[in-house]
């Protein structure tokens, strides 16, 4: 069973979102997503300053076997990206919720956060896909 921290929010496309409480969020992919992808060899990051629309494709995670698109869970501006993923993409497999955060964004409309899945809803989604 994959790890689904209760403190985070989730998307149906398997990103996690951490509300930093200051109008910004941190985003990554879930433990379930990294397991399904397998060994990650490359993460394509967006540029800092880019404005993302809700559900806009902003990057790609590639494993040995496949590529998987990343989608913006919220609308907003990218304020930081995790450049350490360029040299250590395998940290997505090893530490999906900590070391392998992908980007931080300034949220355009914080009420959108409430539309994301909570841990219980995401657990149900993962179980329904199994």
């Amino acid at each position, binding site marked *: 069973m994959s790890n689904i921290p209760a403190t985070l929010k989730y998307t149906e496309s398997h990103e996690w979102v951490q509300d930093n409480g200051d109008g910004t969020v941190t985003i990554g992919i879930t433990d379930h997503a990294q397991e399904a992808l397998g060994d990650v060899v*490359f993460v394509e990051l967006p540029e800092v300053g880019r404005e993302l629309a809700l559900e806009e494709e902003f990057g790609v995670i590639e494993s040995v076997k496949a590529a998987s698109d990343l989608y913006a869970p919220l609308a907003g501006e990218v304020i930081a990206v995790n450049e350490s993923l360029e040299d250590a993409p395998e940290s997505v497999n090893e530490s999906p919720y900590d070391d392998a955060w992908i980007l931080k964004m300034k949220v355009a409309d914080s009420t959108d956060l409430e539309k994301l899945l909570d841990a219980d809803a995401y657990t149900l989604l993962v179980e329904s896909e199994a």
Partner: protein
Amino acid sequence: MSDSASVQGLKQTALHDLHVEQGAKMVEFAGYAMPVQYPLGVKKEHEHTRAKAGLFDVSHMGQLTLRGENVQAALETLVPTDIVDLPVGMQRYGLFTSDAGGILDDLMIVNGGDHLYVVVNAACKDQDIAHLRVGLPTEIEIEVLNDRALLALQGPLAHAVMQRLAPEVCELTFMHHARVSIEGIECWASRSGYTGEDGFEISVPNADVERFARLLLAEDEVELIGLGARDSLRLEAGLCLYGHDLDTTTTPVEGSLIWALGKVRRHGGEREGGFPGADVILTQVANKDHARKRVGLVAEGRAPVREGAELFDGEGNLIGVVTSGSFGPTYGKPVAMGYVVVAHSALETQLFADVRGRRLPMTVTKMPFVEQRYYRG
């Protein structure tokens, strides 16, 4: 992301239950439910095969025997391979060609003495069998060996494993073949494989294959390896995957497979021509007037360049396409093979691959990417 492809209603190999028991992720491949990976994961399975010994179930491939008067000469009418001179107990790589000079499938051919033993690709096997029935004289008997499974044991320690189970098999050198009894199981073993490593391909009756696989798995060096790692291993070894790197629109010359054309079947040879598409193929060999060519490609950085990526020259002209591509776990860089116009096919030529709208530099590079370690004695 969808991670559970439906495997309902698919054909199964005789090792299906073992794969499931071992935690394999099963996917559809050529109409079969096949293990794409085990809990170890694609990258570690790849590395294990390069370091120790990997066990692959390739029972989805078609195994056939051909018997009858002059069967070797008869098969030569369908392939540009030298089969008449293939010694008993030896295996050779061959191609079924079309009248237009394209490749219908690639195959392995063993001279078994009173018969030929042939292994063809899973996705092509029905069409290959039909092609043989139409193309060979009626007195040649074609037997489809649906009762046999096929395993490959690959890696630098494969021989150490076989030394314990069947030392006589270790006397075979690359592309040699023998029938041996291992723990009472009637095995047909070749010193060959599709990973670039030393190893064996072993045909085993379905009824015995699970016991045989468990015998191998009981050895410390051996891990089950799925199709995912099989693909990255063969790509690093510069070996083609039919339907991707070779197809009916590709001639053996374009596919950089001139070496697979028997010398005696070429211009000036003792048995020149006499296979489908010979005029097209032999003219290309002589005039080197083919428009495109299969090459190896290496990208800088880490982004894999996958099948279908278009290739451009420095001026932005479209000059080719990638047919297989992945991150090479052993090579440590993204590797690919693809077709480019001949003018851009020289080693060290720099090209650009379109990956999601960005142009990533790639360099035409000699294959294999990882040195082949076949045992030649």
